[in-house]
């Protein structure tokens, strides 16, 4: 199946000399929700802007459903909807006018019934004739989503959709994204909220300083994250792990003052009970016990901080 988006050797250096993207290669599958995760200034928005045609790439190619986004820009741009990060709206327009405008701009004939449905789905219907400037930030965000959906895109980019958005709207947005996916729309969302990527995405890509550090299925990533570490603070230091405990895959740290055990928290049997029984049998005393979960945050931070 042709990938929804296929990015090959994409680089971008701005006129200022700032290299925003360094040789990005990325494929986004049809119908998936892809989470692009990265700190501010990592290049997320630049990547999206190039795919959507707002920024010109320095080198590399972008295909959308197999069409080149420069040579066949009319085709690719018709396929793509973009919800930008900034709340840039026509302040003096009404939601009704601006959403109908967007639909026309993307080359489609007017369809008032469809626009009405979008506005109702986004709880904007009762505000359709108010000027956008009078709407709250969350409502403006909904207007931007409605504009992006107005031309029935097959691929939807959401650039930091929940930045500065309250909890309720965030839930609504997630529900909306799931509903859209059911209709076959491919969704790419950028975020710096890790829990959002965790909650929504099928696959996650981590981008930092213009480089794509990792692209992985969320399940695989979660399996890594599912690991927990049990740390026993020992009453007296151990020089080595006693042979009676060899089957438990333990490690010593802090010069033998701590004993570590890594286990899968999702497994039926974590092995903790037998481990503790064996430790007791070996006559090892401990003063404290601690368990720690390695989170996406840990992996993320270690990836992003790496030199």
């Amino acid at each position, binding site marked *: 199946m042709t990938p929804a988006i296929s990015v090959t050797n994409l680089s971008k250096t701005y006129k200022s000399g700032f290299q925003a993207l360094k040789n990005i290669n990325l494929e986004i599958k049809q119908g998936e929700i892809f989470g692009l995760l990265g700190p501010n200034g990592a290049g997320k928005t630049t990547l999206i802007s190039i795919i959507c045609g707002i920024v010109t790439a320095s080198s590399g190619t972008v295909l959308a459903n197999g069409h080149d986004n420069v040579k066949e820009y009319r085709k690719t*741009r*018709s396929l793509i909807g*973009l919800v930008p990060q900034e709340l840039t709206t026509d302040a003096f327009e009404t939601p009704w006018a601006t959403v*109908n*405008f967007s639909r*026309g701009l993307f080359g489609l004939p007017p369809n008032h019934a469809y626009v009405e449905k979008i506005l109702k789905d986004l709880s904007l219907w009762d505000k359709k004739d108010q000027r956008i400037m009078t709407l709250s930030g969350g409502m403006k965000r909904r207007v931007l989503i409605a504009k992006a959906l107005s031309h029935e895109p097959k691929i939807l980019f959401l650039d930091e959709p929940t930045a500065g958005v309250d909890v309720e709207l965030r839930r609504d947005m997630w529900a909306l994204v799931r509903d859209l996916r059911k209709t076959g729309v491919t969704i790419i969302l950028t975020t710096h909220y890790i829990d959002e990527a965790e909650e929504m995405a099928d696959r996650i890509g981590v981008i930092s300083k213009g480089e794509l550090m990792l692209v992985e299925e969320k399940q695989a990533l979660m399996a890594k994250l599912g690991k927990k570490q049990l740390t026993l603070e020992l009453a007296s230091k151990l020089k080595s792990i006693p042979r009676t405990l060899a089957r438990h895959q333990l490690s010593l740290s802090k010069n033998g003052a701590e004993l570590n055990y890594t286990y899968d928290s999702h497994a039926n049997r974590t092995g903790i009970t037998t481990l503790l029984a064996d430790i007791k049998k070996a006559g090892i005393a401990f003063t404290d016990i601690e368990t720690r979960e390695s989170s996406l945050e840990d992996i993320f931070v270690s990836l992003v901080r790496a030199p």
Partner: protein
Amino acid sequence: MMNFNAIRSIYIFEMARAGRTLLQSIISPVISTSLYFVVFGAAIGSRIQEIDGVAYGAFIVPGLIMLSLLTQSIANASFGIYFPRFVGTIYELLSAPVSYVDLTIAYVGAAASKSIILGLIILATAAVFVPLEILHPFWMLGFLVLTAVTFSLLGFIIGIWADGFEKLQLIPLLIITPLTFLGGSFYSITMLPPVWQTISYFNPVVYLVSGFRWSFYGAADVSIGVSLLAILGFLAICLAVIAWIFKTGYRLKN
């Protein structure tokens, strides 16, 4: 291939914007032009002798329409494209399946339509104050449309070039207004001393006003063919600049 739905959407959007700002886009130019008619046409004009057999009040009508046409075409078109750049909504235009030709047709078309409507309204207003005759109505409309389109293109260029509201005002204020006032709107070039006549022929507005006035009264400072060539030449220059802007993505794309 063109994106007609997009062109129509932008055109309607821009025309609706004029409807919202009716006061500044239609009423204020009409009021200011009416003041010119009252002062120059009625109050002072009655004491000025006829020029080329035309009463002074009627003589200034084509020039005054040109004055409004030039300034309003530039103002409309420059603001139309500058505003989305300023507030950031340009992202949608750049990510839409529209070509630069589509964009230019839509924005310049809307701006030109507005100033043509305005020009006709001023013409109607003038008819209230002074007796008017239009010898060549077809040529009159032709000059009106050509001038509106050309200067809307110029405004479009300024709107792309400007990176602040001051710059948006700069060219109209520093260049266009002096050129129109010195371009024979209120007088015939032949009334000037020879040196200033020669200098005036470097002012492109002279050709516009002269050609436009010829379509009213059949008398002109320069021949109608030269006027037509001048405006077509200026149109060609504007089109070339636009083509260069779009080819390079100048100020629109990083």
